[in-house]
């Protein structure tokens, strides 16, 4: 906290800042979750509606086994990596913004 300004006037405590903070972070989280859920919830649907296609053998695996048992993990790592990068970026941006307002 900057000691010169009382907390009530600190831009950190403004309604606008909190709203911005939560909206931007939630938007990012929801976007990443959506990408994950499309894959996760889509696979049972694919198994349900296209069983023949999903039973195609690829190197011994059925397509559905290959996706769930092997390919799924790296996909999730990529989503989490993107999230952390963006999320850290947002935080740095928020800190910059507040420091600018405190000085100004």
């Amino acid at each position: 906290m900057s000691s010169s300004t009382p907390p009530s006037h600190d831009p950190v405590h403004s309604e606008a800042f909190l709203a911005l903070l939560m909206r931007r972070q939630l938007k990012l989280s929801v976007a990443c979750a959506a990408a994950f859920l499309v894959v996760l919830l889509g696979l049972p649907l694919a198994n349900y509606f296209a069983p023949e296609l999903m039973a195609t053998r690829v190197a011994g695996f059925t397509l559905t086994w290959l996706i769930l048992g092997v390919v799924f993990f790296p996909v999730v790592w990529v989503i989490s990596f993107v999230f952390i990068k963006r999320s850290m970026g947002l935080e740095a941006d928020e800190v910059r913004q507040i420091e600018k307002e405190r000085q100004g």
Partner: protein
Amino acid sequence: MDLLNTSSSLTLPLAMFANVDPWIFAFSAITVVITVWMGFRSAKTSKTAGDFFVAGRSVSVGWNASAISGEYLSAASFMGIAGMVMAVGYDALWYPVCYACGYLFLLLFIAGPLRRFGAYTIPDFAEGRYDSPIFRKIAVVFVMFIGLFYTLPQMKGAGTTLAYIFPGLPYWVGVAVVGAVITLNVALGGMKGITLVQAMQYWMKMFAISVPVFVLMAVFGGYGKNLGANDGRTLAAAMNPVAEISAPAVAGAGTPAEVARHPLPAKAPSDEAWIAPFGPLTTKAAKAAGLSAEESKPLSLVYTYSLIIALVCGTAGLPHILVRFYTNPDGAAAKRTTMWVMILIGVFYVFPPVMGVIGRNLLPELYAATGAKGTDKIVLELPRIINERYGVWGSVLSGIACAGAFAAFMSTFSGLLVSMTSALAHDVYGRMLRPQSTPEQRMKMFKFAAIGIGGLSVLLGSQVEQLQINFMVGQAFAIAAASYFPLLFMSVWWRGMTMKGAATGMLSGGIAALICTTIINLGDLKIVDLAAFWAAHPLLRILCEQPAIWAVPLAIGLMIVVSKLTASQIPGNIRMKMLVLHAPEKLGLKQEYIQEQQSGMGH
């Protein structure tokens, strides 16, 4: 024919080899000794309450990610998944995938804010967020329920493994011995004591599952090759077993289809049902009701989705995992830790299904056995078939696998014990019964509580030999998904939530899931005969066995409705709380809040 004889004499009745395999015994003993020794050693350095509860909040990302992974990879991961994949096939794959990927929800919505809030336990968070001591009590109750449900499968893992190492040893003795050792360890070392042990145990488990899998694949053919053998040759194999067995696969042999398969016993699922989605696991209720394949498919889909919801949301609501996030220095570290956890456990979770696949081909005898002798011990038993070709090396591998199993249930049970004990010592005793107690008194209480809960776990654990390890863990996840996940998710992201809304939703969802899982267990353990009722109501059985699909929305819905009705009771300083949850640490809000709380609560 010789091959068949040797393998069945090795695997069938345990009494047939009265002697303990020295290799298996040696590796297991080393694991136990190292774990206990490290616990004792660090007991000397665990002095303050902070050390006991959150390891001094000073654990680095690398250590912490290993420790969380080590704690998370329980008997269900190490033994149960392979056993379940072998028993039911494709449907069981949802377990490892959702165990690993559930962390994404934790990462996206909960890890950072929760760490920033700066509490010791989830009940701390519940009280801090809603200024309500009553809510703390409700939260504590669920720490205990989820913890106990999660402890049971660890105890089953302990009983199964010890019965494997010491043939003829009753199941309950294994439960009692392992339970006593860990309880002592936790009572002495607390959280700081087990952080290092658990970090080490992750790497031990990784080694113990991957090395036998790689060796087995080198000798008996790769993952895809073994899976490729499940192409409907079951019938042919059953009718003419000698023809199948007489063509064993040679390491490195070119043709992919040539995997030696032993004939499947009558109890094993057919190739078609085993490898295809919506197999024996999700169609069980429909099968019991005598529905046709077409009629049972939509029910299977419901089961699958409910299982996914339970596992993904449940991971984000497990108290013993969440408490680990408080050992991170800050919110950013909590996020990075979560990502590393997903990578560490994701790599691990590729291996157990391989064991299940090879086990189906090479050790189908296990299908015929039940309890501690059934498919749940495939990870321990399978490496021994190497003995047929390379002498003692199979026993060495099996010993390594046993060491991993020990690491698995010991580390998870330690973590569960710490979280349940913390709930009793820190929340019930320190905050409710004796708020004026000194830190010394609380630490003493921690030790007493550890011993009490350890005893209770052993008692309950000795009753569940007939239940599948992985299924029991799934139940703990379902309860967590319907209670803690909605609480954390909504508390972090919705300011309009009131204490009454949060409590109503969490209690309703959690208790609903708890009742359902209890009913299912009573039926499965044949304490209450429900078979006829379930046969008449297959959908009801599915919704009871996998309650997440309705219990999670029920909890969230009630939270919204009740909070709207009690909107006047939104905590007064909610904006400040939301800021603490969401603003980057660099802005200095966290320190402000903790100092305020510390002076108020006398920490």
